[in-house]
């Protein structure tokens, strides 16, 4: 299986680099163009959240297997302030920044699996996966 690849998020330019990495990986794993766009868009939302809320962090992309299924896993990590209310943050239209409040709920809809681990003052890790159909 291919090695994990990571992109460091420190500026808005890195958001484009992270989503390009995710798209290229998805393409190499055999995802079609629509799923590639879903994956790249989800990574764009999550990487922007890192940049807006934590200032810096990382996006790691890797191939995964479960039984006969193959897919892509994306881990977005930061050492930022954490998400105070996960339920609220996953509601459409909720935002504490200048965003539209679509980042988290939108990214969740675009992916098959979505998990948030967050702790105040420690950071946030979001792991999401999409399986090849």
């Amino acid at each position: 299986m291919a090695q994990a690849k990571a992109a460091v998020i420190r500026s808005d330019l890195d958001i484009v680099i992270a989503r390009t990495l995710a798209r290229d990986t998805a393409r190499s794993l055999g995802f079609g163009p629509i799923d590639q766009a879903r994956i790249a868009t989800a990574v764009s939302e999550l990487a922007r959240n890192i940049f807006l809320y934590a200032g810096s962090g990382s996006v790691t992309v890797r191939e995964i297997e479960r039984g006969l299924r193959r897919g892509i896993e994306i881990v977005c990590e930061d050492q930022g302030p954490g998400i105070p209310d996960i339920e609220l943050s996953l509601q459409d239209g909720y935002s504490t920044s200048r965003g539209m409040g679509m980042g988290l709920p939108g990214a969740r809809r675009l992916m098959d699996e979505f998990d948030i681990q967050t702790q105040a003052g420690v950071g946030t890790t979001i792991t999401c996966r999409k399986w090849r159909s």
Partner: protein
Amino acid sequence: MNSSGLRIPILKVEEVLIASIQVALHDASAVQFKDDLLQKIHDTKARGVIIDLTAIDVVDSFIGRMIADIAAMAGLMGSRVVLTGLQPAVAITLVELGLELPNVMTALNLEKGLAVMKNQVISPDEEEEQGDGTG
């Protein structure tokens, strides 16, 4: 190199501005594009703007909001925006994201976008003799 150095060229054809976005926009370049476009509308008194996204394969919520903002701001200045060339994957992800851009006119491609401009913006009353504001 300046990270905001990337500028999207904005062309003028008669009363319409045309901007074809050919590279992935990062946030600062998208904001720059919005500012440039609004200034150009002011300078040229263009009545319509076509933004062509044929080459764009990702439109996330930030860029989506920027397009909605541009359409609203251009509207305030008396100019209509038509979005053209959205790829199927981009249209699907925009709706799944929850961003349907309800107030933005769209057309399949640049050619059809120019036709929309001509028929609905530049000379909307040419075929049907209906004056607006007669009510």
